């Protein structure tokens, strides 16, 4: 437990030192999307019976919680290959669960902060959405899933360059295609099938349903929880393998 707190607290201290820059970073791309896609198109575009902004904001929440929680992979990598700080954890009498848990919770914290930023940015656009327990549950599961994936992959990659390659080939495409900016129904059936395999698709679906006041998408939520658990177990394994 002490190890878990230490790992988490270290990330929080770093976050605190960088807070202004981090918040600005969390705000910039959602703001651009809101202005470019939402405001410019206005409510003239209706999707699934709602204005495009109402459709877009839950998508941005899903996207940001994914990219921000996955973002810890980059920090873990820099700490490991450039600053060698990972060795400080390896030499400490802490379990792998403590390490992975601390990093994952740090990723989730970042994601929740980013979601808060989006919800605040959405205010001046006058969009009314429902942010109830199911909405937050889904957001938390989504960030848990991608923070776990981040730790798992950060232990596997051999350099910082590999890490950014992963981000541009896995995370960025998923951010755009996972039901964030447009409904999957507009795509050909085969493409829908492919995109249904992405965890983010289920996250954005469930988050949107909740935000628009629909019945909870339990199937999507359970799927997300399952994938998250697998990624977390994967992270435990790769951390164990990370010694040379």
């Amino acid at each position, binding site marked *: 437990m002490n190890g878990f707190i230490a790992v988490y607290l270290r990330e929080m201290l*770093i976050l605190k030192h960088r807070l202004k820059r981090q918040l600005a970073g969390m705000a910039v791309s959602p703001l651009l999307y809101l202005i470019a896609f939402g405001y410019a198109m206005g409510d003239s575009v209706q999707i699934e019976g709602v204005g495009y902004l109402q459709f877009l904001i839950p998508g941005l929440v899903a996207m940001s919680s994914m990219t921000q929680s996955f973002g810890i992979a980059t920090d873990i990598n820099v700490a490991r290959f450039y*600053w060698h700080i990972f060795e400080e954890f*390896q030499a400490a*009498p802490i379990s792998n669960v403590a390490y992975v848990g601390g990093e994952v919770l740090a990723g989730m914290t970042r994601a929740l902060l980013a979601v808060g930023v989006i919800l605040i940015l959405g205010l001046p656009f006058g969009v009314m959405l429902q942010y109830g327990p199911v909405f937050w549950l889904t957001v938390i599961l989504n960030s848990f899933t991608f923070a776990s994936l981040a730790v798992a992959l950060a232990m596997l990659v051999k350099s910082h360059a590999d890490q950014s390659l992963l981000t541009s080939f896995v995370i960025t495409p998923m951010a755009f295609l996972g039901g964030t900016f447009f409904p999957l129904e507009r795509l050909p059936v085969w493409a829908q099938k492919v995109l249904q395999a992405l965890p983010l698709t289920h996250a954005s679906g469930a988050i949107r349903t909740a935000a628009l006041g629909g019945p909870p998408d339990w199937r999507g939520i359970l799927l997300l929880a399952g994938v998250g658990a697998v990624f977390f177990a994967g992270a435990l394994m790769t951390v164990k393998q990370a010694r040379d």
Partner: protein
Amino acid sequence: MIKIEDLRKSYGKTRALSGIDLHVPAGELFAYLGPNGAGKTTTIRILTGLTRLGQGRAALNGHDIVRASLAAKRQCGLVPQQVNLDSELTVQENLDIHGRLFSMAATARRSRIHELLDYVNLLDRRDSLVKHLSGGMKRRVMLARALMHQPRILFLDEPTVGLDAQIRRRIWALIKKIQQDGATIFLTTHYIEEAEFLADRVAFLDEGRIKAVDTPAVLMKGVGQWAMDWLSDKGMHTDYFPDREAAVQPAGTAKNGFTLRRVNLEDAFLMLTGKKVAVPAGDDKRLHGGSSAHAAHTSHGGHGKGGH
């Protein structure tokens, strides 16, 4: 107490350690001396849990490093070869996180941080970001961090590499003090003077094997008391003599000048391994009998040291 039995480690085809046996009793300051690539860091990394052990066994204060890895880790503090502090955090935050990793209570952490920063003379920098510190200061913070949880065994991997002479002496004094406070210290170095000045016992490590283990005095005694470096057309040579009188006679015949000096650990290492400890970077060539001019000892009574 450190006990190592037949420790082996390979990276692919590279054999880093080929069978190390060592026993370091509690309270000893033990120096592991060897040129770059000898396997010093690999040994420390295995003992502290950073690198997987290949074959063999090791125990720290009786705790097996594989079967009781967490208990073994609680015994030791580590100052790795390269600086690995959190540069975006303050000095105090770095130490505090370390204390938490070792389950120290809040009050204990607070008083220990104060005590240690005083010890390493950095109390006024406790709220500075690590990235704003000089190299020597960072080294001292690393030392303080490693001591946070009062380890009974301290591993120092080349603790003074790249530091100037004055700061090096200061860190030596600190290391002595830490030993006097009761810790067992395992130090690696490729600086002869460091081992000579600090160590109770020295191991000569070369190509993953231990060539000799003993006190510096005994290791040097095997060579003789006096050394004469002299230049011929073929380069620099060194001859050894049991006493000064024996050395003076042949000295008269050296036509290109000579230096007479006390024997040091470098001579002992050279004798046993056929190479110098401090080989200039990128220059691995073995030195037979004599030594090449640029790595020669030139000062009277001084301790020779090659390139950096």
